[in-house]
C-alpha cells in the first residue's frame, strides 16, 4: 500500500513539475517568439492595400513598410524633414514660364514647376509570381486557366516567383493608375489641379477602362502617356505641375506615388484571381523593407523582410539636431547600421482593448497604446499634471513614449448660420464669449485623461507656424500671466455676451433665452456625460444648448448642406505644412459652395484671410512666411469660426526589449528602424507567464469529490428505495 502511495505521489510530483515547466498561454509558436519577430496588433482589418486607393492610417501602417514612394520623412528629425528614399538626391525643382524657359522661383512669370527625380540603381521588387516571364517576355502566369486556378489559394501556391529592378516607368505607371476613375484614388481630383493635363488623361483612360472592363479585357497602361509625366530614362522621371505648389513634394512621400510594376497590374486583373480575393488591393507588390507574406485581414497580417531591399542605414544626427529633435543617445546607438533590423512582424487582429492590454502585460505584444480602461493602471498623474508610469509598469521595464499629434479637434460654428455665423462685431463677440466659456482644460482632464493640449489656433505643434509662449497664445481666450496661459474669466465672456446683444443669455431683440443647436453623432449611453458637460459650458453664459444626436450619414449631410449651427470635427495632417491646416478655413473650400467636397466645414469666408492664404500657400518656410501666418492667425482668432479645441497627445508603452521607438506621426515606414531583443523577451515571458497550478488541482479534487458525493447519495437512495419496497 505504501509503495503504491509513494508511486502515485511521485507521478503527481512529476506531473506538477512538468506543468510548471512550460508556459501554456503563449499565443504564438515558441520558434516565432524566440525569433527576431515583432508582435503587434491592429484593431480593424485593412480594406484597401492598393497604394493608389488607400487613405487610412490602419492601412498605411502596412503599406508604408511594403511600398516605397520617392521621398520619406527622416525618422528622427523634428521638425519633420523630407529626405530621399528611392532617389539619389532630393528632386531637382525647375520653374518654367509660358515659353518653357527657366525662370527664378520668385518670378511672377512662373507658369509650371518641373520636378526631376533621379532614382537609385539598386531598387528591386520583392519576389512575386507576376515577374516570372516566358522566353518571349510574356507573363508566365498572366493568363491562368480554370484548371490552374483550382490549385491556387494564395500567392505561395505559384511554383515560381521572380523579381526585377524598379524603374522610373513604374513610378509613371502609378500616376497613370491613379488617373483611372475605376480605381477610386482619393487624391485624383486634387492632383488634377496640379499635374499638367492629368484631367484630360483621366477622362481618356477612364473611358478606355470602362470599355475594356465591360468586355472583360485587361487594361495595360503602358500604352498611355500622361502629358505632365515624362520618363526620361530608366532612372529619371519628370513631373510637371501647374504654377507653384511646394507642398507637392510632401505628396511624393505618400504611397499614392509608390511604383507599380505593370506585370503586377496585369497579373491581378485576371478575374479568377480576383474571385479568390487575390488582387493588388489585398496582395501588394513593393520594393520596401518588407513584403506581405500573409494577409488574413480577419485574423493576422504577417510582414517578412524583403531579400531584395536596397541598402539603407539607420539615420544619424548631429548633437545640435539631436537636441532640437529631442532624440536621446540611446536612439542613436544604431546610427549607420544596415536596415531593417527585424526579420518578421506579426500583427494580430484585436478588436477589444482588454485582451490587447493583458497580452501586452504578459509580454506577447511588444508595444501598446493605453486605453481609457487601462489608463489608471499604467499612468500616474503628478500633482502638477505631469504624467509618469505607474510602479507596476516600471517594475516590468516598460517605457512610455509620448508626443503631441499633428492633429486638431475643434468645435465649429457654421459661419453661414444667421445666429452663430456672420462677421459683424456682435456676431464675433458671441463666438468669442462661447470660446472662452468652453473650458478645454477641464475637457482634457475629464474626457482625455490629460492626453491633449488646449489649442490656440488651427496649427498644431510640430508644424511650421505653431508658436510657443505668449506669441503663440490666443489673446481672445487666454491671458498671459506670469509666463503661463490663463483662460479668461467668465466675467469677460459674459461681458462679451452682453455686447453681442445677449446679456445673461437673453436676446435683446426677442427677450427670449438664446437657444443653440449642437449636432453630434454621439448617441450612445457613454456619450451622455460628454453631452451634459457641453450643455454646462453653454449654461455658464445662460445659453440653452439643444443636442441633436443623429447617425453619421445624416450628420455629414447636414454639414454638407450647412444645416447645422455647432458641431465638433477634427483633422489629421496629411503633410507637415501649415497650408494643410489653414486651408480648412480658406473661403474657396467652403463646404456649402462645393457640393460637400470642400473641407472648410465651418464655411468661413474672410477675404483678408483668403488673400493671405494664397500668398502663404506658395511660400517656403521662412520668417516672411511666418509673418504672414501670424497675420492669418490673428484674423481667425478674432473671427473665432472654431472653438479651438485641443491637439491630441498620443501615449504608447513599449517593453524594455523593444528599441528605437520614436513617435513620428508623418512617417509610415518606421518598422525598418525598430529593433528587438528576442532573448530578453523570451526570458521575461517565461517569468511572467508561469502557470498557477493549485487552482487546477483544487478543481480536479472538487470535481472528484462531487462525483463521489453524488455516487454515494445515489447508492443511499437506491438502497433506501429497496428497503422501502422490501418493507
Amino acid at each position: 500500500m505504501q509503495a503504491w502511495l509513494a508511486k502515485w505521489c511521485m507521478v503527481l510530483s512529476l506531473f506538477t513539475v512538468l506543468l510548471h515547466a512550460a508556459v501554456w498561454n503563449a499565443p504564438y509558436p515558441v520558434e516565432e517568439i524566440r525569433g527576431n519577430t515583432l508582435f503587434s496588433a491592429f484593431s480593424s482589418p485593412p480594406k484597401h492595400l492598393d497604394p493608389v486607393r488607400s487613405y487610412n492610417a490602419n492601412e498605411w501602417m502596412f503599406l508604408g513598410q511594403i511600398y516605397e514612394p520617392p521621398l520619406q520623412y527622416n525618422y528622427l528629425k523634428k521638425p519633420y524633414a523630407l529626405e530621399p528614399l528611392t532617389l539619389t538626391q532630393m528632386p531637382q525643382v525647375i520653374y518654367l514660364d509660358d515659353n518653357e524657359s527657366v525662370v527664378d522661383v520668385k518670378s511672377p512669370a512662373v507658369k509650371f514647376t518641373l520636378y526631376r527625380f533621379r532614382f537609385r540603381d539598386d531598387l528591386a521588387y520583392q519576389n512575386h509570381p507576376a515577374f516570372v516571364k516566358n522566353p518571349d517576355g510574356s507573363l508566365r502566369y498572366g493568363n491562368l486557366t480554370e484548371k490552374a486556378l483550382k490549385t491556387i489559394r494564395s500567392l505561395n501556391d505559384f511554383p515560381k516567383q521572380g523579381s526585377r529592378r524598379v524603374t522610373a516607368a513604374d513610378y509613371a505607371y502609378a500616376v497613370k493608375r491613379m488617373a483611372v476613375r475605376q480605381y477610386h484614388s482619393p487624391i485624383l481630383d486634387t492632383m488634377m489641379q496640379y499635374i499638367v493635363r492629368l484631367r484630360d488623361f483621366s477622362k481618356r483612360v477612364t473611358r478606355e477602362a470602362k470599355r475594356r472592363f465591360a468586355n472583360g479585357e485587361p487594361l495595360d497602361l503602358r500604352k498611355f502617356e500622361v502629358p505632365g509625366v515624362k520618363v526620361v530614362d530608366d532612372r529619371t522621371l519628370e513631373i510637371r505641375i501647374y504654377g507653384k505648389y511646394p507642398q507637392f513634394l510632401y505628396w511624393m512621400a505618400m504611397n499614392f506615388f509608390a511604383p507599380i510594376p505593370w506585370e503586377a497590374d496585369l497579373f491581378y486583373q485576371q478575374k479568377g484571381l480576383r474571385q479568390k480575393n487575390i488582387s493588388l488591393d489585398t496582395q501588394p507588390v513593393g520594393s520596401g523593407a518588407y513584403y506581405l507574406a500573409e494577409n488574413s485581414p480577419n485574423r493576422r497580417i504577417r510582414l517578412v523582410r524583403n531579400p531584395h531591399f536596397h541598402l539603407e542605414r539607420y539615420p544619424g544626427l548631429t548633437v545640435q539636431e539631436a537636441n532640437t529633435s529631442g532624440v536621446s543617445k540611446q536612439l542613436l546607438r544604431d546610427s549607420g547600421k544596415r536596415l531593417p533590423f527585424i526579420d518578421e512582424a506579426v500583427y494580430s487582429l484585436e478588436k477589444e482593448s482588454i485582451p490587447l492590454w493583458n497580452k501586452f502585460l504578459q509580454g506577447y505584444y511588444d508595444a501598446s497604446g493605453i486605453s481609457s480602461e487601462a489608463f489608471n493602471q499604467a499612468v500616474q498623474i503628478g500633482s502638477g499634471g505631469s504624467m509618469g508610469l505607474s510602479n507596476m509598469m516600471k517594475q516590468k521595464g516598460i517605457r512610455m513614449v509620448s508626443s503631441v499629434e499633428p492633429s486638431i479637434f475643434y468645435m465649429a460654428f457654421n459661419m453661414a448660420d444667421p445666429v452663430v455665423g456672420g462677421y459683424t462685431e456682435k456676431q464675433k463677440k458671441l463666438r468669442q464669449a462661447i470660446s472662452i466659456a468652453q473650458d478645454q482644460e477641464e475637457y482634457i482632464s475629464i474626457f482625455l485623461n490629460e492626453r491633449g493640449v488646449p489649442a490656440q489656433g488651427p496649427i498644431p505643434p510640430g508644424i511650421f507656424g505653431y508658436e510657443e509662449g505668449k506669441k503663440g497664445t490666443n489673446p481672445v481666450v487666454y491671458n498671459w500671466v506670469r509666463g503661463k496661459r490663463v483662460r479668461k474669466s467668465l466675467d469677460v465672456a459674459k461681458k462679451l455676451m452682453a455686447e453681442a446683444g445677449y446679456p445673461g443669455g437673453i436676446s435683446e431683440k426677442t427677450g427670449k433665452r438664446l437657444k443653440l443647436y449642437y449636432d453630434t453623432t454621439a448617441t450612445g449611453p457613454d456619450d451622455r456625460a460628454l453631452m451634459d458637460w457641453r450643455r454646462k459650458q453653454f449654461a455658464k453664459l445662460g445659453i440653452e444648448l439643444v443636442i441633436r444626436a443623429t447617425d453619421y450619414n445624416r450628420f455629414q449631410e447636414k454639414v454638407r448642406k450647412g444645416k447645422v449651427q455647432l458641431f465638433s470635427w477634427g483633422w489629421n495632417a496629411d503633410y507637415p505644412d501649415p497650408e494643410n491646416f489653414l486651408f480648412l478655413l480658406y473661403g474657396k473650400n467652403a463646404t456649402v459652395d462645393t457640393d460637400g467636397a470642400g473641407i472648410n466645414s465651418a464655411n468661413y469666408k474672410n477675404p483678408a484671410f483668403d488673400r493671405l492664404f494664397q500668398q502663404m500657400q506658395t511660400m517656403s518656410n521662412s520668417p516672411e512666411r511666418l509673418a504672414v501666418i501670424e497675420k492669418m492667425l490673428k484674423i481667425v482668432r478674432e473671427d473665432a469660426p472654431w472653438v479651438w479645441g485641443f491637439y491630441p497627445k498620443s501615449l504608447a508603452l513599449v517593453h524594455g526589449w523593444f528599441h528605437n521607438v520614436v513617435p513620428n506621426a508623418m512617417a509610415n515606414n518606421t518598422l525598418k528602424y525598430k529593433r528587438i531583443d528576442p532573448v530578453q523577451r523570451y526570458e521575461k515571458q517565461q517569468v511572467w507567464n508561469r502557470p498557477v497550478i493549485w487552482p487546477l488541482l483544487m478543481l480536479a479534487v472538487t470535481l472528484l469529490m462531487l462525483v463521489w458525493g453524488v455516487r454515494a447519495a445515489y447508492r443511499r437512495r437506491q438502497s433506501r428505495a429497496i428497503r422501502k419496497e422490501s418493507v
Partner: protein
Amino acid sequence: MLAYIIKRILYAIPILIGVNLITFMLFFMVNTPDDMARAQLGAKQTTPAMIAAWKAEKGYDKPLFYNTEASGIQKVTDTLFVNESLKLFMFDFGLSDANRNIAEDIKARMGPSLAIALPTFLIALVTNISLALLLVLFRGSVLDMSAMIVAVMIMSVSGLFYIIAGQVLFSKLWHWVPISGYESGWAGVKFVLLPVAIGVFAGLGSGVRWYRSIFLEQINQDYVRTARAKGLSEIAVLFRHVLPNGMLPILTGVVVIIPSLFMGSLIMESFFGIPGLGSYTIDAINAQDFAIVKAMVFLGSVLYIVGLILTDISYTLFDPRVTL
C-alpha cells in the same frame, strides 16, 4: 418525405423574397447609395465624380425597385433589387462593396466559427441534459433546490461578465490559456478551450432548468412507474425511458439552431480574437457594406429554414407516430 421537403423548399422561396425585400427597404431607408460611396471611398474630400464612379461600378446608380428609364419588363428587371436578388437565389453572393469575394470570406470564416460553436453546442447539450437528469434523480432534495438557485444565479449574470472574468482568471492570473487568438488545426485547441468553457458555463443555468422541466413532466408518467415496477434502477429508468420520451421537445429547440451555428457568436469571437462569421454582419452594417449585409441576411434565413426542416425530419426519427 421527399415530397414534404420539396414542398417546404418551395414555401421557402416567397419567404426569402420577402426577407430580401425587407432588407433592401430597411438598409436603403438608412443609407443612400451616396452615403455608402462616401463610407467606402474613405477619402477626406469626396467629390461628386468619385461618388458617381463608385456607384456606377457597384450598380448602385440603378433605381431600387422601378426603372422609369427602361422599357417593358426591364422597368422591373433592370433594377438593383431584381439584379441582386436573382444572384442571391443562385447563391452567388458576388463581391463586397470593398471588392472582396463574399463567398470566399464566408468560407474562410465559417471554420473558426464552427470551431467554437460546435464544441460549445455539443458539450453544453450533453452537460445540460446530464445535469438535468441528475437533478430529476434527486428531485425535491437539497441538491436539487441548491442547483436551481445556482442555475438562476448563472442565468442572471451577463454573458459578457463571464467572458471578462474568464479571461482575467484563466488567462491573466493563472496563465492557463492564451487570452485571445486563433490557429487552425490542433494548434488551435488551446485557443478554443476558454471560449468553449465559458460558452458552456454561461448557458448552463437556462439549459439545465429547461431540460429539468421537460424531464419532470415525464418522470410521473405511467410508463415510468411501470419501468420502476419492473425493477429497473433509477439510472436505467432515466436514460432508457425518460430521456428518449423527452427528446421531442428537446429536438424542437435544439435541431433548429444547428444550421445557425455556422453564423458564429459576435461577442465571443470579438473578445477572443476568433476570425469567424460572428462580427461579419455587424462590421458590414457599420461599414455600410450592403453586399455583405444582404448576403448574410439571406444566408441566415436559408439556414433557419433548413433548421426548421431538419427539426421536422428529426421528429420522425424519435416518434414513429409522426409521418411527413
